[in-house]
């Protein structure tokens, strides 16, 4: 079994992902945002359809205008018109396409996080199928069913809390704090402090 990375290697690795995320997709890392997109896939689908029909409408409108222009001024007016029109439409479409990342892309992101974890576990010899989370976790919570119940409720708190706070460890903690955004600094201090207090309380029950 391989040792975990020393702290500096972890820092370089995590920072590398945060930075790469910006350079590859043009925005900062945020996993709870991907969750929101995947869970709200129906809304996202509706928005995709809306954007698409908007683009199509725009195309139709242009055709109609073009036909009118042709009828009114004849062929020669087309050339000068074309230059202007091309610039306008292409930039607008680009902006829209860049803003919208469909929910399936976010799902791929989440699923590949699982694949990455699997790969890391197998290559380091840490992979082991278990029905519980860890020895200490079972010591704190007890029998298997109690562990599962704790995980279910913990999960609900994590899901609800991150959406309510507008970010999680990656969005607020890493991306937000790296840019010194006040709300992110407050959020990060709050969730770290809460986790620390509760962990000390749980430790005291052992």
């Amino acid at each position, binding site marked *: 079994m391989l040792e975990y990375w020393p702290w500096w290697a972890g820092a370089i690795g995590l920072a590398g992902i945060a930075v790469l995320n910006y350079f590859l997709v043009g925005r900062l890392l945020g996993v709870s945002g991907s969750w929101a997109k995947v*869970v709200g896939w129906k809304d996202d689908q509706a928005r995709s359809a809306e954007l698409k029909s908007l683009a199509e409408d725009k195309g139709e409108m242009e055709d109609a205008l073009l036909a009118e222009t042709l009828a009114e001024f004849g062929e020669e007016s087309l050339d000068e018109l074309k230059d202007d029109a091309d610039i306008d439409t292409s930039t607008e479409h680009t902006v829209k396409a860049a803003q919208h990342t469909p929910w399936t892309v976010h799902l791929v992101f989440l699923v590949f996080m699982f694949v990455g974890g699997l790969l890391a576990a197998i290559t380091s010899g840490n992979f082991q199928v278990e029905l519980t989370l860890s020895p200490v976790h079972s010591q704190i919570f007890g029998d298997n069913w109690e562990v599962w119940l704790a995980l279910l409720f913990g999960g609900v708190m994590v899901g609800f809390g991150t959406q309510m706070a507008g970010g999680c460890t990656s*969005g607020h903690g890493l991306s937000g704090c790296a840019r010194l955004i006040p709300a992110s600094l407050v959020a990060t201090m709050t969730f770290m402090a809460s986790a620390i207090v509760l962990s000390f309380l749980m430790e005291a029950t052992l």
Partner: protein
Amino acid sequence: MKQSMSKQYLFYAFLGLAMGFVVARIGFADYDELHKMFIFADLRMLYSFAGAVILSMLILAPFSKKIPRQNKIFQPGTIPGSMLFGFGWAVSGACPSLVFVQLGAGKLAAVFTLVGIFIGVLLHKKIHARFFRWDTGSCGV
């Protein structure tokens, strides 16, 4: 920045893969390591996290004007939401990304966390639309 669809899928898949791998190798998916960090018995992972924040800050600083504002505003849910998340993290050992890494390490119990997070996100969506209605900002969307 215009990107074709397939490129988006490829980039996000790569980022997910890299993140899952790195986070697992640091040890974040290991509840015992995480618990040790939260009770200050071993600060290695905390240093990794803090180091990553400082490194990203330095590397991203020259681009700060170009990075799109991601609407991270202080809103009524920031503090209660973060508290809830912190408690949930201490109990389940999972944040929205760690749950996948735990599953990748073979911890089947994390399926319960996965279902829990799904319910939590859905619940917030419904309750927010019905009762809160304030702007929560967004997380990288």
